[in-house]
């Protein structure tokens, strides 16, 4: 288990460095950052001064190493637009995105697991077919469009929920639904498949034979085993979701990190964009690392193989 953990940790760290290198090289794809900061009316000497001030005249790898060491201690440089440290800026916004992510994944799990269990209890029944139908529909629905439809129906027609902003819990209802429904089909299918597999196992037959009630068999014996892969999928989905929150946050003007990313891209504020790409990647890496560990801990075949 220790070897497995170390291997995975090594991989995670290596991936993090590669992602950081890629996100840092964005700055150089953009052309000359110095003239971008200086603005359109700057003279050549102004640009030269800015280049020296920000250190853009040094070799690429030196700048990368510099950026990386600063980033390791939590310093992502200054935002071009806000003229304040990127880390402060992101720290302010991250809690909203985290909250949204937690709400989204909870919503997805709380709806998808019962649906998956119900579908597995009666394969090919009306419930099973409805659940499958919903998951196929859900996968085809563009999330930004789904968000707009919710706004039209619940904010404009019915007037129940605020269309945008992030000040109260009611602002989070629609974004949670939009972000959560995206992960639902996968979770539901996995729950259903897992339940179907587990229900054929010997210990389920034993439980039934000794007279355990159907509810007890379902929840105490079957679900507990079927839910393990679902939890690890949920962790991975959570990583994806935080990255996908950019769309949801921009629809609902929820001022989280995703919204900040969208604004910063529009403003060419590259230090902020680089830092956000790295942070969103880091979330994904940490979540998959943890889910790998949990899986290996629960299932010895993984850590040996």
């Amino acid at each position, binding site marked *: 288990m220790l070897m497995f953990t170390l291997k995975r940790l090594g991989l995670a760290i290596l991936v993090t460095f590669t992602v950081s290198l890629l996100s840092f090289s964005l700055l150089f794809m953009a052309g000359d950052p110095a003239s971008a900061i200086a603005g359109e009316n700057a003279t050549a000497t102004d640009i030269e001064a800015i280049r020296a001030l920000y250190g853009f005249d040094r070799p690429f790898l030196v700048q990368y190493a510099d950026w990386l060491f600063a980033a390791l201690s939590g310093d992502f440089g200054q935002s071009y637009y806000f003229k304040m440290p990127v880390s402060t800026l992101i720290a302010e916004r991250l809690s909203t995105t985290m909250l949204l992510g937690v709400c989204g994944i909870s919503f997805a799990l709380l709806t998808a697991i019962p649906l998956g269990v119900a579908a597995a209890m009666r394969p090919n029944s009306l419930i099973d077919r409805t659940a499958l139908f919903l998951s196929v529909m859900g996968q085809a629905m563009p999330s930004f469009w789904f968000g707009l439809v919710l706004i039209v129906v619940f904010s404009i027609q019915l007037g129940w929920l605020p269309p945008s902003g992030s000040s109260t819990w009611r602002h989070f209802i629609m974004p949670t639904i939009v972000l959560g429904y995206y992960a639902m089909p996968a979770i539901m299918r996995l729950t259903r498949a897992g339940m179907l597999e587990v229900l054929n196992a010997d210990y389920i037959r034993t439980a039934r034979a000794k007279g355990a009630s159907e509810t007890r068999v379902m929840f105490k014996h079957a679900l507990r085993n079927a839910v393990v892969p679902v939890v690890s999928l949920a962790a991975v989905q959570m990583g994806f979701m935080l990255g996908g929150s*950019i769309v949801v946050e921009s629809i609902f003007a929820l001022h989280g990190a995703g919204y900040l990313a969208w604004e910063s891209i*529009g403003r060419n504020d590259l230090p902020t964009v680089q830092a956000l790409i790295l942070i969103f990647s880091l979330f994904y890496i940490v979540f998959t690392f943890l889910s790998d560990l949990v899986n290996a801990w629960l299932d010895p075949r993984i850590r040996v193989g």
Partner: protein
Amino acid sequence: MARTIETVAEELRTPSPAAILRKRVFGHYGLVFGLCALAVFVALAVFAPLLTPHDPYAQDLLARMKPPFWMAGADPNHLLGTDHLGRDYLARLLYGARISLAIGLFAALISGLIGTAMGVAAGYFGGRVDLVVTFLINVRLAMPVVLVALAVVAILGGSLQVVVCVLGLLLWDRFAVVMRSSVLQVRDLEYVNAARAIGCSTRRIILREIMPNVVNNLIVVATLEMAHAILLEAALSFLGLGVQPPTPSWGLMISEGKQMMLFEPWLIAIPGVALFVLVLAINLLGDGLRDVTAPENRG
């Protein structure tokens, strides 16, 4: 009823493989629906100039915001109404199908080439090649697609070609994962070993022995990734950092309609439904192909 030689022969006569496949294909409603709907979209896109007399770019400020045919005050000249610049909405929708289909097709093609090459190499050669490919897949999965695509498109400028290339370079992960595991399943089968034993070149083994046996998985992933690319393009254009106006992209139409969705919800309903049905059709086609070609892999 007496069993004669004839009836027994009839019972024993098994349907040909082609007949089994035909039955599977036409018995699969999702597949049939997906195929038909996709064919309709392709036809609409190809024959767009014949189906509407209007130019999707032509503005007519005297005929702005005409409602579609099911609402009062509709103009029979503009079946789906006109947008805020007086452009015919049906024409924009039809030409928009071209954009979506082209992006889906070419992005899936680029990512398919990259992902298949990586996946097949990893699966066939194993060892270090596999390690490197697996690592690259991990890196790719860790990067937030929407964010990276938005940033790169913003830097390079939003044109159709840039969006296609960026999506193509970002969506190869599933191809690589699926091709790697498919090749792993067949690379040590007897016929591959036989080909190796009689001294076939690696190239020949991969192209003639392995590829034909994994190509069904490739097609399934390609359809699903095509749908994925279409959704992503729409999202990027909706966020203002994909295809740029005045191109008639569906995502852009939804984004422009958003300003007026308070009073004119049909402006976002029409392109949204078109996008939804197209993606649904492609997904159903992909799922159907998977069920038909490899029923044992049904999820």
